[in-house]
């Protein structure tokens, strides 16, 4: 079947989509958007996290056909072509929160959603928000630092907050 939807603000179309296929597979294998990572395929690891109509979801657990006519935003859509990395991405780089990088796209999206909802989260809020994203390299401390850093920068320069 054919699936038409918006990905990172652009109208896209995928053909010959298998009816039981996941949004994740369609993004990676049919639309050239391999940023969202495929690991557990059961919603345990969060490395495939994307925005679907503004809510973060595990794209491995959304059927491709379900996004017909809807809006998806992936890690590829975070950086701005003019201004560069999203502040959340920059904070992850600056805090050293990226090691092998596999879990990073999911963490970036989930952190972005957290800070949009709550620009100054406490540590417990951060842990709760990221509880569905597994990282096997960092021990999470650098990730916590990155989220705190992104939060601090955002609150220091509210006019430059991410859209």
């Amino acid at each position: 079947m054919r699936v038409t939807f918006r990905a990172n603000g652009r109208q896209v179309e995928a053909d010959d989509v298998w009816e039981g296929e996941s949004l994740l597979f369609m993004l990676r294998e049919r639309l050239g958007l391999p940023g969202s990572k495929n690991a557990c395929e059961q919603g345990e690891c969060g490395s495939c996290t994307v925005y679907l109509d503004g809510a973060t979801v595990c794209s491995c657990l959304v059927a491709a056909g379900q996004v017909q006519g809807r809006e998806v935003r992936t890690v590829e859509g975070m950086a701005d072509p003019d201004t560069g990395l999203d502040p959340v991405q920059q904070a992850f780089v600056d805090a050293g929160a990226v090691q092998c990088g596999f879990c990073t796209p999911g963490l970036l999206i989930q952190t972005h959603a957290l800070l949009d909802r709550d620009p100054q989260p406490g540590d417990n809020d951060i842990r709760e928000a990221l509880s569905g994203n597994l990282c096997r390299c960092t021990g999470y401390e650098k990730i916590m630092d990155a989220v705190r850093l992104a939060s601090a920068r955002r609150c220091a320069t509210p006019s430059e907050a991410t859209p």
Partner: protein
Amino acid sequence: MEFLRPATWDEALAAKAADPSALPISGGTDVMVELNFDRHRPAALLDLNRIGELTTWERGTFEGQRGEVIRLGAAVPYSRITAELSDALPGLAIAGNTVGSPQIRNRGSVGGNLGGASPAGDAHPALLAAGRDVLVEAESVRGTRLIPIDEFYVGVKRNSLAADELIRAVRIPVADGPQTFSKIGTRNAMVIAVCAFGFALHPPTEHRALGTVGTGIGSAAPTPRRAPEAELFLTEELAERGLWHRGGLLGPAVIQRFGELAAAAASPIDDVRGSAAYRRHALAVMARRTLTWSWNDYTQSLRSAA
């Protein structure tokens, strides 16, 4: 495989009638796992995401149910239940907040828990505890059937829906007293319950002279189930001692006995998540704790009202 995309509820019912083997998919948090691992390949998927009314809820009075009721659309995600219904349905909101991760709670719904009818579904103990007049609205082209929650679960991952029926909504009485939920797992997130317990106090009102209590056991029997003897014991104890009216201490013997009866109502098995013996032990502990939490809240509410 076919992918059916009904635009309206009537179209969905017609599609389910035409092909009863079509598997409904909403949040996908259970269905897609089965597909990704090729454990199950249905002839057709019936996507319910386009049907707006499934993600709405309303508060009102309904025939056959006393008092105010939340009619909860089958696909309202857990994140919204916690955000919007914590006051009206506290037990379900607490249970819902233990489902998976934030990403899963943005997609998973009570309709999905009921459709899957896993004994480990987090919503079930809260629904059972909320009362015997919790009703599942099952609809087909033949009409609407209201299934009492106690008749809904019939076996391991089996419910009492007919092949052509879809879950439209669940009607849950607005909480009339404290409700809570407790769940055992290896960590605080991404946990399928080792076992779980839902508890609710239903104090006496002008319409109902006898106060009652509600219980729900998860992951410790072939189906979610209540603990009827524990409910009866506590209901009688509270009435005989006049505790509903004055609150105060229940006493350790009552709490202990309640825990024993709750654990005795389960029929757990040994599996990868835990042993039967552990589950029984944990259920007794959770029953004692949830009773104590709820009763303390109730006593507090009497005092602040006085």
